[in-house]
């Protein structure tokens, strides 16, 4: 019998801004899990702190809301204690790529058996719009009113350079693509599954049309790491889909 996505419904009403990509990620996550036939009690979601982490009680599953930048080690501990559960770590770009980047690199390098979903809005949402590691150079934020002075970090290239078994990118402008990508990541059983979800921040960094003009779909994962890395490097033509799968 199919799992009804309603099982994942929390009574708590989300407080994200209208138009926030998090609504889409949250509902696609519920659908992906139910379509994969996971019941909520078989799933553990470990959240970061941020707008993303405010989703912690907006989904009905086993949830641990951890610390800023730290969902990965907690998720890992849970997975080692309970192999039978599906353990997913969720964080923002600030949390995963700066505050706790050591955890991302170490777990990816060791190809640890967890799923990591980056809700990557290229901005610090919850703390009202400061520059993030993935903020585009020149983008004006309260920290750098004259424009962010640095080139952004490339999370896909970073993770591809490790031994992560599964690396994908998707975006909130295409909910179905997002859902399918999540499903592939969650069903990956051979180690570390990383998905960089380019997420629209309606308030501090609206990106829907920016990405709509630039994304192209990769139908099948690249055959070699070199090709995958090469494709990941371009910010002009942005590859979405499963870029690497071992």
């Amino acid at each position, binding site marked *: 019998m199919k799992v009804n996505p309603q099982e994942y419904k929390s009574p708590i009403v989300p407080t994200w801004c209208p138009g926030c990509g998090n609504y889409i990620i949250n509902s696609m996550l519920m659908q992906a899990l139910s379509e994969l036939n996971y019941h909520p009690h078989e799933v553990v979601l470990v959240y970061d702190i941020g707008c993303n982490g*405010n989703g912690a*009680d907006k989904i009905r*599953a*086993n949830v641990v*809301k951890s610390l800023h930048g730290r969902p990965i*080690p907690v998720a890992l501990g849970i997975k080692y204690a309970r192999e039978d559960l599906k353990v997913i770590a969720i964080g923002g770009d600030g949390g995963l790529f700066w505050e706790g980047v050591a955890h991302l690199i170490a777990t990816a390098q060791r190809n640890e058996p967890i799923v990591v979903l980056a809700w990557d809005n290229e901005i610090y949402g919850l703390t009202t719009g400061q520059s993030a590691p993935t903020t585009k150079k020149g983008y004006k934020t309260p920290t750098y009113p004259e424009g962010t002075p640095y080139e952004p970090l490339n999370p896909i290239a970073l993770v591809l350079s490790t031994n992560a078994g599964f690396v994908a990118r998707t975006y909130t402008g295409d909910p179905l693509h997002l859902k399918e990508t999540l499903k592939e990541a969650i069903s990956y059983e051979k180690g570390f599954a990383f998905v960089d979800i380019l997420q629209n921040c309606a308030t501090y960094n609206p990106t829907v049309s920016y990405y709509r003009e630039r994304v192209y779909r990769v139908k099948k994962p690249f055959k070699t790491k070199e090709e995958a890395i090469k494709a990941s490097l371009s910010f002009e033509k942005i590859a979405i889909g499963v870029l690497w799968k071992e």
Partner: protein
Amino acid sequence: MTKKDFQIFITGPAGSGVKSAGKFLQKLLNTYYHTFGSVGYYSLIKGGRNYFCLRISQTPIYSNTYKSDLLVALNKDCLFGYLDRLKPKGILILDNTVYSSLTDTEKEKLKQYKLMTQEFIEKAKEKQILPISYLLVIIGFLSKSLSVSLKKAQSTVKKNYSKAPSHIIESNKKALQLGFELNKDLKIGVEPIRRSTTNKVIDCAYASSLGFIKAEGKIFTAYPMTPSTPILHYLAKMKKKYKIIVRQASTEIEAVGFAIGANWAFARTLVATSGGGLDLMGEFISMAGMAEIPLVIINAQRPGPSTGLPTWTDQGDLDLVKAIGHGEFPRIVLAPYDAKSSYIMIQQAFNLAEKYQTVVFVLLDKHLTTSLFETKKQDITRKIPIERGKIDKNPKLDKNGFYPRYRVTEDGVSPRPILGHPQSIHITNSDEHDIYGFSVEAGNERVVQHSKRLLKEKTILKKEYTPPLKLIANKGADIAVVSWGSTMGAVYEALTKLGTKTQNFTYYHFTWLYPLNYVDLTRKFSRYKKVILIENNASSQLRKELERANIKVTKTILKFDGEPFFVDTLYNQLAKIIRKTDK
């Protein structure tokens, strides 16, 4: 002349095998005597001055003395670095190559000692003994004067180095034999008290590891940091046998986060670190407090601040474990003082952490994790019954579809539902939350939950608090001597010796350091006119707690040079204070 007590001090550069040869000698001699061994080493891989300090006695002992009866120095630098540890007229053993490297004035300085020079190295070379075994020539030399037979020494070497390739074992055996042959007239004169024993000599890192296994621990994780690292090494060796997981974390933050995740999922998980590593764990410790997750952390102290003295000892982190982690939440601090108590307290720590769903610190230090304590077999096999606290095995969801994880209860402890059950879906939250774990903002829910968490401390005090051990009790004494943690061995011995001269003191030793029952302590200490507090730190950190119980510390004996207390020097300090005030 026969003696009751004898201390051997062997010093050489890192890489010369002083530590392992010393340990071997202690294991060997433990058959015949009571022993206590400690190591000193520098934070480097080659060179420096390492030592192994081995005391043997006809009566039980728990520490070293500052002055030794015999000193072996493997080079000039170590010789003069540690010559002060040798008693005047003590025996000094040098290889003749070391002796001949000395200047005349240097030789002059050795006049006050009983010097024995030997051609250890030259003879070893002649016999084609491998350089790695040279030190065992000296061990053989000493063993002969300590009632050990060559046969016993050789069979022990085989057992002790069982993993070594056979040509090394052969070389070790030859070295011991040569040592026996060279020893013609060394007199030590401590009669053995026994011919065999089942007692073991182990350090507290090993004892804690055994305690963790006994506590049905499942996962150990750590980032290497002296002096906690031996625990990582021991458990890594034990993991197959006991089917545990041992993981080297990529940072201390990963280690503690991992432990929080695994403990949340009911796998007993231990983390060990030292001061600087603990500092990094602060935020997660605070999370354990808020989210109510069991957590056990061993902090093996070394002298700080900062990188400090990585390989030496100190008790400078009591204030830290009492305060680490922002916000207010209950915590427990335990301090073992030997191998047996380390073994027991790790087991207790897991029970407490799970019963009260919060953090428990076990404070060790370099002196404990690396010194070798004589330990009875039954002391490291006893199992403390496992208590896992309130676990709801038949969970029921509320109407809203969630299990109320943070239900308010009379003792502050909310049941944890088993994980992965259809009726146990729940939220564990580092944000302030309501009974379901849903995030809340300022207001009454916060007050309710914060009060609930803090209520656990009251429950802990009521149900678990362990008063200080009264190790020496003298009726009508005016003076209380107080200590905690690793200082116990030296303090106990010094006071026992002093007890033959005066009985005007009682000795209290704290093993449970936080939270304290101040009312109980006030009552216990009110009868003493003087309170002497002994600590291996500079600011007398336990004093702050005693003062909260209105106990006035009249005198402190503090040591913070990186070395532990020694019986002989501590005895002199105590005798001065206590006898002066003796009626």
